[in-house]
């Protein structure tokens, strides 16, 4: 086990595309870090640089205390699980799992022991003599995990390992990976575009966009204190509602629409800003409340244990999460209040840095 450190890592392709910009991440020994972001954000490239499959244009990569920039992938003591499993089709499951150890000239007896142990752990012992084409997708992904486990690597790298599985299997495998991490206590770097995976698996998340790291923090902190507008909307489902407006005297007012001021803290300077409120932090107004704004319900989505209300305010649609299933009918006019202390204030510029 070892830490993984990325120092000022850059990747510029020969065609000039700057895929990864100055990335700095410190991953502690045994930590589970998830790189998350929309497709094309550079998360996979970053992972592949760690693996040694891409050469960094500049910056340093450290695994443990070794600078690994110039090491072959095989010398970096890492294991990787691919989105498409990348099992060797011409080998049986056992051979697939043995391959990496054989390449490292591990003693035969140890290889067998490790393979059996990993197979046990993943309940794939009965599959050991099969070939990849004779297995289902879930089984293949288990084998791919097993192939990584037997190596006892310093770090595990996962490149969207679950995205080829159907929804049910995905949940199952997710828990399995989480369990694996708890059991192995290994350093894991996991790339996904799925925020649920990111939130549930990661000790810390690294949010990326256009090659730039937006925020590095534990999942709850990312959720509750998103560093900027992008992070705020990327994490959380349904996405956070954003209102454009301005701060005046420590209170936020909507632009162009009549609304009550929302106190955001007196330390914030006056000026344009964006107010972020998660759907669960917008509550349907009550007479005794200081209501923020009113709107017309357009659609009600009933999810069983809760309802999502799509409410039109001016020309904007906002989503309200309500525990009460019969709180409003489409067409009804509702007043919305903001849960106290649950507002996110972002700068009004392009980036939208968090202000509060």
């Amino acid at each position, binding site marked *: 086990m070892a830490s993984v450190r990325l120092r000022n890592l850059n990747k510029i392709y020969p065609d000039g595309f700057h895929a990864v910009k100055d990335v700095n991440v410190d991953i502690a020994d045994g930590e589970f870090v998830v790189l998350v972001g929309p497709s094309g954000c550079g998360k996979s490239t970053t992972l592949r640089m760690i693996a040694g499959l891409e050469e960094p244009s500049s910056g340093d990569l450290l695994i443990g205390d070794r600078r690994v920039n110039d090491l072959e992938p095989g010398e970096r003591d890492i294991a*990787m699980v691919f989105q*498409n499993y*990348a099992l060797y*089709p*011409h080998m049986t499951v056992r051979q697939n799992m043995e391959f990496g150890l054989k390449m490292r000239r591990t003693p035969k007896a140890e290889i067998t022991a490790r393979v059996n142990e990993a197979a046990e752990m993943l309940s794939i012992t009965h599959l050991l003599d099969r*070939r*990849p*084409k*004779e297995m289902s997708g879930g089984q293949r992904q288990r084998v791919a995990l097993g192939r990584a486990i037997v190596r006892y690597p310093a770090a595990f790298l996962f490149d969207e390992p679950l995205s*080829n599985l159907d929804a049910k299997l995905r949940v199952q495998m997710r828990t399995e990976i989480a369990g694996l991490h708890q059991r192995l206590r290994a350093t894991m770097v996991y790339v996904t575009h799925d925020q649920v995976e990111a939130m549930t698996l990661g000790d810390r998340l690294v949010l990326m966009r256009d090659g730039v790291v937006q925020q590095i923090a534990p999942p709850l902190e990312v959720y509750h204190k998103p560093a900027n507008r992008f992070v705020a909307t990327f994490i959380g489902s349904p996405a956070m509602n954003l209102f454009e407006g301005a701060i005046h005297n420590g209170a936020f007012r909507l632009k162009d629409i009549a609304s009550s001021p929302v106190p955001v803290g007196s330390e914030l300077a006056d000026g344009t800003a964006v107010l972020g409120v998660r759907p669960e932090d917008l509550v349907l107004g009550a007479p005794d409340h200081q209501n923020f704004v009113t709107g017309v319900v357009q659609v009600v989505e009933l999810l069983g244990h809760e309802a999502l209300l799509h409410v039109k305010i001016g020309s904007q649609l906002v989503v309200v999460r309500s525990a009460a299933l019969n709180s409003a009918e489409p067409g009804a006019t509702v007043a919305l209040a903001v849960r106290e202390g649950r507002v996110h204030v972002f700068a009004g510029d392009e980036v939208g840095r968090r202000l509060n």
Partner: protein
Amino acid sequence: MTSDTPQREPFLLTLGRHALLLAFVAISLWPVLDVLAISLRPGNRLRTTEFELFPRDATLASYRALFTEQPFLRWLGNSLLVSTAVTVTGVALASISGYAFSRFKFVGRQTMMVSILTTQMFPATMLLLPLYLMIAKLGLVNTFVGLVLFYVATALPFCVWQMKGFYDTIPHSLEEAARIDGCSPWNAFTKVVLPLAAPGLVITALFSFMSAWSEYLIAAQVLQDRELFTLPLGLKSFQSSMSTQWGLYAAASLLVSIPVVILFMLLSRYLVSGLTLGSVKE
């Protein structure tokens, strides 16, 4: 692959498959049976005016003469040696260079790929004179090395492209996995990618073999000694303007095709092995 898919085959479709295959088998064999008839005919008759599969006066004399009066076995040996050498060299060179063309974006890649094709675009008959001049100057007359070199050079462009095409169908993640498993780039290629390109290797091997096995023009320039003749040269020696020994020619032609068929039988297992199936899911 539809072999064991959930799609059930209607009876009519099965029937259609067999009908189609049988029709083409008939078309394939028909002229060859004619060659067989020529080889069995006494005298040197290419044509007859009768329709008969087996001549009434059929004789194996031509076959007998091939082995007793003609150095057929010697030619066979020479051809096997040359063709095997061409196959091994051709497959080795094509499999490695095709891999580079498929996987790496290096400077001049496209130019190189197109320019190796250009060597196939000159009508071969036009190049005979300079070819002979070169063979004579380099002292390659009557050497198998020279012959093998030329054959490899003529077979390579197709083989390189074919291998590149096959590698293109193999996902990159397999080599990446192998690299992470501790393989050098070379090992990742030979241990993981190459076995998966088996159908390509089979086609390349068969093609290289055939291009040497049946080649006449270059061989006639290089080999000037009957002892060193390859089969096509031997066959050609039964020919003569207006007085070809058709019986011998046809018999030898059929015998010449047997090793090709055997080779194909041996290799076709790999041609249809379907190894890449299920390895990855894109």
